[in-house]
């Protein structure tokens, strides 16, 4: 799922400085799961903002709402009444949710409350790590289910660099070398021969973000 963490508090205070009534909108999906923007974290941020503003003598009124998913138009629409009553929105959903609100409420300032970091998995409770960079052309079948794009600092496609030492990465010593992991897992699966196949360089411009936002169109599904 998408992983995010709260933006620096001062930054958020700065966005909200001109306003005295806002909506803090959380999201019940990914950011809830990573404890960044669900109902609990939203309420904590709201309480902190209220107190910080009270201290400066400029009280801030905050309405709170946590739709099940902010990235769907119907859920966004549910906020329309509330948004009519506030001057701005602080959204603690991922960047997608912020933009959904921005698209549906052209007249309202929407501020992000979290930094959307990556698509990752829960390594252990309270620890998340990046696993996918949405390159658009999955090669996990060749790399024993471990992604060198997301997990190798240099995004190497055909084996480790010279800096891989004792299974660790030279860029960040505490990080496992993705290619070491790929080699070890391929070996234990008896699939080492797959690594002899050369993976061609990625066509970033065509498949990936270099050519603007990617789009999926399913004509059969359109209403």
């Amino acid at each position, binding site marked *: 799922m998408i992983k995010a963490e709260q933006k620096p*508090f001062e930054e958020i205070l700065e966005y909200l400085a001109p306003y005295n009534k806002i909506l803090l909108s959380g999201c019940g999906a990914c950011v809830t799961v990573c404890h960044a923007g669900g109902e*609990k974290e939203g309420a*904590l941020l709201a*309480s*902190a903002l*209220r*107190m*910080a503003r*009270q*201290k400066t003598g400029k009280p801030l009124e905050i309405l709170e709402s946590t739709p099940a998913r902010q990235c769907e138009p119907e859920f966004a629409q549910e906020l329309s009444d509330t948004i009519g009553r506030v001057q701005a929105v602080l959204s603690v959903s991922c960047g997608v949710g912020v933009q959904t609100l921005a698209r549906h409420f052209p007249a309202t300032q929407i501020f992000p409350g979290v930094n959307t970091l990556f698509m990752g998995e829960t390594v252990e409770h309270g620890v998340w790590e990046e696993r996918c960079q949405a390159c658009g052309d999955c090669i996990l079948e060749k790399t024993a289910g471990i992604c060198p794009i997301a997990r190798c600092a240099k995004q190497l496609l055909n084996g480790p660099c010279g800096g891989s030492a004792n299974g660790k990465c030279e860029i960040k010593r505490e990080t496992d070398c993705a290619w070491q992991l790929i080699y070890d897992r391929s070996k234990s699966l008896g699939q080492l021969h797959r690594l002899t196949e050369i993976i061609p360089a990625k066509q970033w411009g065509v498949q990936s973000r270099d050519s603007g936002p990617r789009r999926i169109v399913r004509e059969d599904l359109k209403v």
Partner: protein
Amino acid sequence: MSTFEPKIVAFCCEQSGLPAAEMAKTLKLKIPDNLELVPVPCSGRIETLYLLKALESGADGVVVFACYEENCRYLQGNVRLKGRVGYAKQIMAKIGLEQERLEIFHVATNSGVKFSEFLMQKADQLRLLGPNLGKIA
């Protein structure tokens, strides 16, 4: 002379803090005038949000009376609490609230005297610190 009497919200674990509070009451020990006791089944029940909400809605200081570590009736309650109090303190630092306004104090059921002494000291400390400027009265 200041007439400021700080308001203290004291969360009391029913396994330790609450019996200690009752003991202090029975022994007619001194406790601060402006004190609100909130009994909880285990200090693990106290949400980070409760700590902030108490400060937001009028407390000058928040105290949690919890069991000694490794002594929790529910094994992990006071350990989880410790993490949450740490998180709440981080948030308080960002708001600019003094760290002294939030504290865990470990007690046993028979710590009536400690309970009273700690609260009296806390009240003195808060009196010097002055009112919580973040509260929305």
